C-alpha cells in the first residue's frame, strides 16, 4: 500500500515541487585505523532532491548510514574553501556541485584532491599547500610612514587585481595541476594567484621581492599553461591569466 502510494506521489509531483531521485556515490576511502593502509572504493545510494548538492549526499551518508565517512566542510555555500574534492575526475567544491548537474544516472566518483597526503577518506593534509602560500609573502608590504587616512587607490587601480582577491585557498587549482602532482615542490597556482593579488596592488611595494621568489626554479616558469586550474577554480578566477600576467611582469618588470 504505502509503497504504491509513494511511487505514484513520486511519479506525479505536486506543481512546483522538485522531484526526488536516487544517486549512487562511489567514494574513495582511506581509513588506516580500521581498514589497513590501502585505500578502497565504497558505494552508497541515497535519495536526493532537486537542489541538493554533493555535500548534502555526503551528509546523508554520514548522518544516516556511516558516521565514519570523513570530509571537511563548514559554510556549505562555496565561500570557506573546506571541501574541495575530486568529483567525477574534476576538482570542485562539494557544496557547489549540484547533484542534478552531475548526471545521476551513473555512479558519481568522489576522491580526495590529488598531490597532497591523504589523512583519512576525503581529508588531505593541507599544510604543504599553506606553506607555499606563506612563502610568497601574502601581505601588503609598504615602506615609509603610515598615512593618517586611507591610501588613495583609483577604481581602475583596484580593478587591476580584483579577480585574484576572490581566492578562498581551497586548493582546487593547485591539486588539479599536473606539474604539482609530479613535483610537490612547485609553488602551484594558488600561491601565484595570491602573489598576483599583491604584485598588482598599487599600494604594495614588495612586488620585486615576490617576483624574485617566483623566478626560482620551482616558481612560475614551471607552469605549462594546461588551464586545469582555471577550470577547477570555484570562484571563477582566471588563474592561468593571472599566472601569465606574473610571468610577463617578470620579463618586463612592469606591474
Amino acid at each position, binding site marked *: 500500500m504505502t509503497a504504491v502510494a509513494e511511487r505514484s506521489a513520486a511519479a506525479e509531483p505536486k506543481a512546483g515541487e522538485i522531484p526526488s531521485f536516487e544517486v549512487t556515490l562511489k567514494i574513495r576511502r582511506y581509513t588506516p585505523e580500521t581498514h589497513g593502509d590501502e585505500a578502497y572504493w565504497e558505494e552508497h545510494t541515497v535519495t536526493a532532491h532537486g537542489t541538493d548538492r554533493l555535500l548534502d549526499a555526503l551528509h546523508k551518508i554520514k548522518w544516516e548510514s556511516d558516521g565514519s565517512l*570523513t570530509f571537511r566542510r563548514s559554510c556549505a555555500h562555496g*565561500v570557506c574553501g573546506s571541501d574541495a574534492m575530486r568529483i567525477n575526475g574534476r576538482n570542485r567544491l562539494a557544496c*557547489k556541485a549540484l547533484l542534478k548537474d552531475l548526471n545521476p544516472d551513473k555512479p558519481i566518483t568522489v576522491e580526495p584532491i590529488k598531490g597532497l597526503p591523504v589523512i583519512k577518506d576525503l581529508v588531505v593534509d593541507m599544510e604543504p599547500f599553506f606553506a607555499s602560500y606563506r612563502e610568497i609573502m601574502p601581505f601588503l608590504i609598504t615602506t615609509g610612514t603610515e598615512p593618517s587616512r586611507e591610501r588613495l587607490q583609483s*577604481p581602475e587601480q583596484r580593478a587591476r587585481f580584483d579577480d585574484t*582577491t576572490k581566492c578562498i585557498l581551497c586548493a582546487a587549482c593547485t591539486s588539479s595541476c599536473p606539474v604539482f602532482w609530479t613535483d610537490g615542490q612547485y609553488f602551484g597556482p594558488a600561491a601565484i594567484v595570491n602573489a598576483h593579488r599583491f604584485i598588482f596592488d598599487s599600494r604594495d611595494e614588495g612586488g620585486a621581492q615576490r617576483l624574485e621568489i617566483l623566478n626560482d626554479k620551482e616558481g612560475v616558469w614551471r607552469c605549462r599553461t594546461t588551464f586545469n586550474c582555471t577550470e577547477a577554480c570555484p570562484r571563477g578566477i582566471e588563474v592561468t591569466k593571472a599566472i601569465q600576467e606574473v610571468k610577463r611582469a617578470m620579463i618586463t618588470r612592469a606591474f
Partner: protein
Amino acid sequence: MQTHQFDVVIVGAGGAGMRAALESSARTRTAVISKLYPTRSHTGAAQGGMCAALGNVEDDNPEWHTFDTVKGGDYLVDQDAATIMANEAIDAVLDLERMGLPFNRTPEGRIDQRRFGGHTRNHGEAAVRRACYAADRTGHMILQTLYQQCVKNEVAFFNEFYVLDLILTHDLTGREVPEGEDVAVSGVVAYELSTGEIHVFRAKSVVLATGGAGKIYKTTSNAHTLTGDGMALAYRRGLPLEDMEFFQFHPTGLAGLGILLSEAARGEGGILRNADGERFMERYAPTIKDLAPRDIVARSMANEVREGRGAGPNKDYVLLDLTHLDPAHIDAKLPDITEFARTYLGIEPYTEPVPVYPTAHYAMGGVPTNVEGEVLRDTTHVVKGLYAAGEVACVSVHGSNRLGTNSLLDINVFGKRAGISAAEYAAGASWVDLPADPAAAVVEELEDMRNRPQGERVSDVRRELQQTMDTNAQVFRTAESLRQAFQDIQVLQERYSRVSVQDKGRMFNTDLIEAIELGFLLDIAETVVVGALNRRESRGGHFREDYPKRDDENFMEHTMAYRRQPGVPVDSPALSAPKGEEVPEPGPGRPVVLLGTKPVVTTVYQPMERKY
C-alpha cells in the same frame, strides 16, 4: 596528553580572534586555537559591509551612528559601548585599509560607502551611506587580510584543535563565590582532530572568540560549525549568558536553503514584493521601506506569507526583485550573491525575482563582557584573565537587534580591545595553578561518547532540535510555542545522554566532534527558550505575539541566564524572581537555568518608540 604554556590563548580564528591575536602577539607570547583553518571561519561569509562614519561620500558623524545603533537595538543597547564602537569605527576601517584590505573606491580613490538598513542621517532623516565594502565579499576580505597580517607577524596557530573546556578556579554551577574572593581562568583543554590527542593549554589570559550559534535553527545563514561552543563552555562553568532570547532572523535567505543574500541587495536598490507584486514594505515602514531594520523586515515578510500573500507554489516565500537594476551594476556590486541565486536555485536575478525567506543569522546575546572585553560572572564581577569578543560575546552594542554592518565592526573594535586587555593583564598577573587533572572531565566525556555501543543518533536529535526551534522559537513566539520548545529540548537532552557515535577511531573523528557540538547546541537552545519565555514583551528580534508591545517598565533590562546544579541554594543578588511565564521544571537531575537581570547602560538617548 600534552601541556602547553602561553601568556595569552585565543580561542577562535575568525575576525574577532585574529584581530585580538594581532594585538596580543605583538605584546606577549600568544597562541590561537581554532577548530577550523583560520581562513575557513565564518567571518569570510559576511558580504555587505562594515560601517564607519567616515563621511567619504556624504555628511556623517559617529554620534548619528551611535544613535542608529541604540535605536536599531530597540534601546536595549549599552550606550557607553555603542559610543565607543561608533567612535573607534573610523580607525578600525583605516587600520584594515593600511593592512591592505581592498575596499571599493570612490572616483577620487577614497573608500567608497553604501547604504544599509537602519543607518541614517541625523537621527532618522534619511538613509545614509555608511557601509565600507569590498564588493559583496567584505567579510572574506577582512578574514583574508587579518590572516595575511597574522602570517606576516608569525602568529602561533593550533588549527583543527577543538577547545572543549574552560578551566576556572571555581565551579560556579555548584556554589556561589564569597564576596572578596576572585574567580580566575587558568587555561583551556583542547582536542586535536587529526590525532585525537588531548592538549592542556595553561594561560594567564584566555580570549573567547568562537563566533555564533546559528545551528540551533534549521534554516540559517550560519556554517555547520557555528555551534555556540564558546558560549556553552562558559555557561557550563556557571558563567552567565546575556540576552540569549534575542536572535536575529535575516530577511533575505534563499528560500528553503537559508543561504544569505546580503542586505546590500536592498542597499543597492533591490525591492521586496509579495505574490501580487506589491512592494509591501511601504505599508510597514513608510519612510525607509525595504531598508528598515532586519527584525521589522523579517516579521513583515513572515506576516505577508501568513496572510496568504506569499509567492510560489506553496505561497511560502516572498520575492527579492533586482530586475530593474542594470546588470552591469549588479555585476559590479553584488556578484557573489547573484551567483548564489543562479547556482542554488537556478534563478537569473537579471530577469527573475529571487525567492527569499527569513533565515536565522546572528546571536545578539552571548558571554557578557564590559567594554574592555573582560567577561562578567554576574552583574558586576569579572573573571580574572577571561575575555570574549565577537559574536560569542555580548558587550552589548546590538541590544535586541543588530544593525547590518555593525558586526564586522564589532569584531574589529572589540577584538582589538580584548587582545590588548588580555596581553596587558597577562603582563602583570602571576600564574594560577591548574587543577590536578585538568583534562579529566573532557576525557571522560569523549570516552563515554566513543564507547557507548549503540544509542541515539546525533543527526536525529539535532534535526529535531532544529525543527522545534524553527517552529516554536523563530520570528513569531508565544508562551505556548516556547513551552513546547522547552519540553522538546528536555526530551532531547535526555536522548542526548544516550547518543553514540559509529566512528570509534582516534584520527580525524568528525563523528565524535559532531556529537560534542550537539551538546553545545542543546544547552544554548535551552537558554534562548527560557529567556524568551521570561520576556513577556516584544522588542527587536524577540517578538511575542501574546505580548506584542515593548514594555520598558518591566523589561528594560538585560537577561542573564545562569546554569546551576539542582539543589544549589540560590541567594545571589544577581538572580531575580522571574517575571514572565513560569519556566517548567527541567528533567530530573538536570541542571536548571536561573534567570537574573543586568541594568541597561543609558547615557544620552532616552527610549522612544521605534518608527521608520
